[in-house]
């Protein structure tokens, strides 16, 4: 059974039979709100959300190479792999997916933070108030079974980036914390600075 999380909630991630998880798929999704536009309004521009993962040592980003994003699709440990950029958020289900091989992630990495930012938000005057149905979900990649899902429910008008949640080691297993904290960062680099 998948658990629906509230903001702030923490869950321990286990296989449905109680065993240790080896690989997880982190799926992130969002839809664009339909805008009503005037006759001479500028042409609508797609909202390009980008999901990224920050692999942290002692809770902090140690190196720029630990940022897995559309410009660096695979972590140097090969344990975190971004499945590719989606430019429009169109369609059902996950818009971007990140695969994490928990079993092969080096032990010194103790936390992976999942963030989404709107590409060129400032230039395109876009923000999370124009996005609905945003979610993050964690699946067991070996069975494709969903373990937990967190639907963002707050109003994030004027926010351009989002810390969705984090996977972290705790007492030898992995936990997930639904964060849902928005920021006004304009790029994944600005967002990463918060963890440096």
């Amino acid at each position, binding site marked *: 059974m998948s658990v629906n999380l509230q903001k*702030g909630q*923490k869950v321990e991630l286990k296989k449905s039979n109680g065993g240790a998880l080896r690989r997880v798929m982190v799926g992130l999704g969002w839809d664009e709100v339909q805008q009503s536009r005037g006759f001479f309004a500028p042409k609508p521009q797609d909202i390009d959300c980008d999901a990224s993962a920050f692999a942290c040592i002692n809770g902090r980003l140690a190196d720029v190479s630990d940022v897995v994003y559309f410009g660096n699709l695979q972590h140097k440990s090969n344990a975190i792999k971004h499945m590719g950029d989606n430019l429009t958020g169109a369609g059902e289900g996950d818009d971007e997916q990140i695969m994490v091989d928990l079993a092969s992630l080096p032990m010194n990495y103790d936390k992976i933070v999942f963030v989404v930012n709107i590409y060129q938000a400032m230039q395109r005057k876009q923000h999370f108030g124009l996005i609905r149905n945003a979610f993050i979900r964690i699946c067991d990649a070996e069975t494709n079974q969903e373990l937990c899902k967190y639907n963002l429910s707050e109003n994030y008008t004027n*926010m351009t980036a989002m810390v969705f949640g984090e996977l972290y080691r705790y007492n030898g297993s992995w936990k997930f914390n639904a*964060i849902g904290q928005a*920021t006004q960062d304009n790029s994944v680099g600005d967002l990463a600075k918060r963890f440096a």
Partner: protein
Amino acid sequence: MGVNLSKGQRVSLDKNMSMALVGLGWDTNKYDGGADFDLDASAFLLGANGKVRKDADFIFYGNLESSDGSVRHTGDNLTGEGDGDDEVLVINFSKVPADVQKIAITVTIYDAQVRGQNFGQVSNAYVRVARMANEGDMTGSEVLKFDLVEEFSIETALVVCEIYRNGNDWKFNAVGAGYQGGLEALCRSFGVNV
């Protein structure tokens, strides 16, 4: 350095400690941008039946000191900013009335429901007990510490610990029990009329 306790652990407090500082600390708003986080520490002076003897036995930001002077709250902190203790309670053991068996120390989130906040959004929460050399010693020498970080997520009220009589001594119990419903729910369960 004091002893680090884990949830459920009970330890005796030194007989010769006449005044103790109970410091509570936490960090909130990890990535900022959210509403202010206002956590409140409180103490309930409980009789043998586990209830307050009277409403004035509930020490909180609206009633900073018990009438007998045994438990004193040093003041409300509205943001939880900065290192170290965010809120402090002072216990003067010699002044605790004989019919008070137990002092429950709690932390609750002010206006949690409206602000959509819970303890899963709080990090580095702890309680520590320190021996005070004198009335003005607000640092004290630490006797014990109980880290609460991983115990909670969607709760809005915590019974952090209990300090209770055991014969002629006082003991500390690292309770770490979480509840929903905030301070009001705790008051009801301890028999305070709200």
